[in-house]
């Protein structure tokens, strides 16, 4: 899990999901709100226009029943529900209340009517009813042409109507009987919120309500659609983000591969600039430049070591040759002879160092050349072991070497690996009971040898460094014991020149074990 969390791609994906999620939710809420507003305004619109289709006289209860049925019919189409109707006076007197009016409490919260008390029952109810209708049509701007006759009648009756509602007119009104715009509000009731339009006129109130729960049902559909589509969208976005991030990371991955494939022998390689975009091109260029500098200085260093080693060879040859001659000419058992002997030995040591330096330079340049010849690995092992048995008679040597471990190997290099491993095994062994155990096995493709010895083992903090150049596990150990600190490093280089490997398999108090693997070339 931790690895996942550290993945750049994963983080990009999560970030994208979070951002998209926020946007989606905000969008969803906004849409829902807008949808709600549209719905409510539709309701309002209908509440405003419904009454004008049929509007009976306030006290004409049968007329209200008819009106109620009519609006119910219309409402069932428009709102998918009933219209609750309540006609009441300013004193709270109820003239009409539809069957499903939700609650009494709702009544208390309804606004009181403005205007005057209801007029006495009209002497001409038909005429008055007609007026309601006419006024409605006039307000809607219709019927002027279609109902020219009625218009005339309306005009004719103006005087009478004025008489009937003479106390009603207010200045600026369309006419004395005009119905003011309803007051629209949302009130809570026992069946949920109700959208109400309350008409006030002349002491009467007509409250028409629609249950918003019917609207809410439609909202539920919207919400469900959103709840299904949003996660789907998020999944698609996540997948998209993953793909895009992966694509974006491709050049980085390519660079990573290229960088990890850079080894000493392949410093000359460069990463190809692709079509990934300028950001990555720049990175690749910078990396290539760095590689270039690295290669140059590395080559210089390598060439320097190689040149130095070469340059040393001629003076060494001279020194060695003359010392040899001098040694042979010196009188027997003389001080001179011993001195020349000593000098010759030191010259030979110098020569050894020079040779190693040259080998290291070659190893660094990846140029250790190996001359493979068909070699019996087992006999190389036993030969080397014999030497060390001779040298260290106190050490117990155990050998488990399979027969016929034959492969194309560079005899000289492999011998040097074996000698180095054996000499380490003998040197860093248990003081009281030294032992060395060698196991060599072969498969079709590999020869594997493990060489173990006793002793206190390599300290844990030093285990990673044993193959480093000039590494000495215990710096207090003296030179003659430790060679030049190059043995394991060079041995590993030799093994690798064979495409093999030399590694520390185990080191603990009581046992240290190295493993050498050499592939059998086809």
């Amino acid at each position: 899990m931790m690895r996942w969390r550290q993945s750049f791609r994963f983080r990009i994906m999560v970030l994208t999901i979070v951002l998209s999620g926020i946007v989606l939710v905000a969008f969803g809420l906004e849409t829902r709100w807008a949808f709600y507003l549209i719905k409510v305004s539709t309701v309002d619109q209908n509440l405003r226009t419904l009454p004008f289709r049929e509007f009976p006289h306030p006290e004409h209860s049968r007329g209200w029943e008819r009106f109620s049925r009519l609006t119910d019919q219309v409402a069932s189409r428009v709102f998918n529900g009933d219209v609750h109707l309540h006609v009441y006076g300013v004193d709270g007197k109820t003239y009409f209340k539809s069957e499903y009016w939700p609650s009494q409490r709702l009544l208390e919260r309804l606004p009181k009517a403005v205007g005057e008390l209801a007029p006495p029952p009209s002497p001409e109810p038909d005429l008055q009813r007609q007026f309601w209708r006419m006024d409605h049509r006039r307000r809607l701007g219709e019927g002027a042409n279609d109902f020219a006759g009625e218009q005339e009648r309306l005009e004719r009756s103006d005087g009478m109507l004025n008489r009937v509602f003479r106390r009603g007119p207010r200045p600026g009104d369309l006419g004395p009987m005009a119905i003011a715009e309803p007051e629209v509000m949302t009130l809570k009731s026992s069946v949920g919120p109700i959208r109400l339009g309350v008409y006030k006129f002349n002491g009467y109130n007509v409250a028409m309500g629609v249950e918003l729960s019917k609207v809410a049902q439609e909202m539920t559909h919207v919400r469900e659609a959103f709840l299904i589509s949003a996660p789907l969208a998020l999944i698609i976005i996540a997948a998209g983000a993953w793909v895009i991030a992966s694509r974006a990371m491709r050049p980085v991955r390519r660079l990573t591969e290229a960088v990890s494939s850079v080894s000493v022998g392949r410093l000359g390689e460069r990463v190809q600039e692709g079509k990934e975009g300028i950001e990555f091109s720049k990175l690749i260029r910078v990396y290539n430049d760095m590689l270039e500098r690295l290669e140059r200085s590395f080559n210089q260093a390598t060439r320097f070591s190689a040149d130095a080693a070469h340059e040393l060879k001629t003076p060494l040859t001279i020194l060695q040759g003359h010392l040899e001659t001098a040694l042979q000419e010196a009188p027997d058992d003389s001080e001179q002879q011993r001195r020349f002997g000593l000098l010759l030995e030191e010259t030979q040591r110098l020569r050894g160092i020079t040779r190693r330096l040259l080998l290291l330079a070659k190893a660094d340049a990846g140029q250790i050349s190996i001359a493979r010849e068909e070699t019996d690995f087992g006999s190389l092992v036993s030969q080397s072991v014999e030497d060390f048995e001779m040298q260290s008679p106190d050490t117990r040597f155990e050998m488990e070497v399979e027969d016929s471990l034959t492969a194309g190997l560079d005899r000289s290099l492999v011998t040097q690996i074996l000698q180095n491993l054996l000499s380490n095994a003998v040197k860093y062994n248990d003081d009281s009971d030294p032992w060395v155990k060698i196991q060599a096995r072969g498969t079709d493709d590999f020869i594997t040898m493990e060489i173990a010895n006793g002793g206190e083992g390599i300290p844990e903090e030093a285990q990673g460094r044993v193959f480093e150049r000039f590494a000495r596990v215990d710096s207090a150990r003296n030179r003659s014991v430790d060679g030049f600190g190059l043995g394991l490093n060079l041995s590993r280089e030799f093994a690798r020149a064979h495409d093999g490997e030399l590694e520390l398999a185990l080191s603990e108090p009581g046992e240290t074990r190295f493993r050498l693997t050499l592939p059998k070339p086809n």
Partner: protein
Amino acid sequence: MKVLLIEDEKRISDFVAKGLKERGFTVDLAENGNDGFYLAKTQSYDAIVLDIMLPGRDGLSILKGLRAKGNNVPVIAATARGELDERLEGLNLGADDYLTKPFYVDELVARLQALHRRTSGSQLNVKQVGDLVLNMATREVSRNDREIELTSREFNLLEYLMRSSGRVYTRTQILEHVWGYDFDPNTNIVDVCVQRLRKKVDGPDDERLIETVRGVGYRMKKQ
């Protein structure tokens, strides 16, 4: 045996020529490639010791020129380079043997003698110091008709010491030649092996042939 030494570095040719002469070779010296090539063409030699890096005509070119003219004189190429590919190149061009600098004159002598044996067809594979006889072909050693069983290391050590009786070899020299050791400067093994060899070679009643030169190394008793 007449040898042409083509070597520009005087301080090297000095001791090489001297060493060869001491061992009974006749040595002509050429200090550059052109002289060397001229001498090689005009004179008759049993062998040529050829430095590869030379002023004037370089060693590989001399070798090529000689072989192109059908001159089959044995050539030992000597160089400070010693890279494998160069060695192969030298051998492909017709060098009979190869020596990497720095080398010991002893080694050169041994190679020259081996070359001579090979080209002259002589079977001088037996070395003798006093009553000790070593047969390089059969790898048998005997003293006073007593067969001596030796391990391969012991045999190589004895053979090396017997190359030139009376000559002192240091431990490192022996280690390098007999064991081919490069890593380990510990020469203890030489002492151990010499003790063993001594026990086998020098019987209780025999003259001690393997001598210790105090502070230096070992040698075969001079005849």
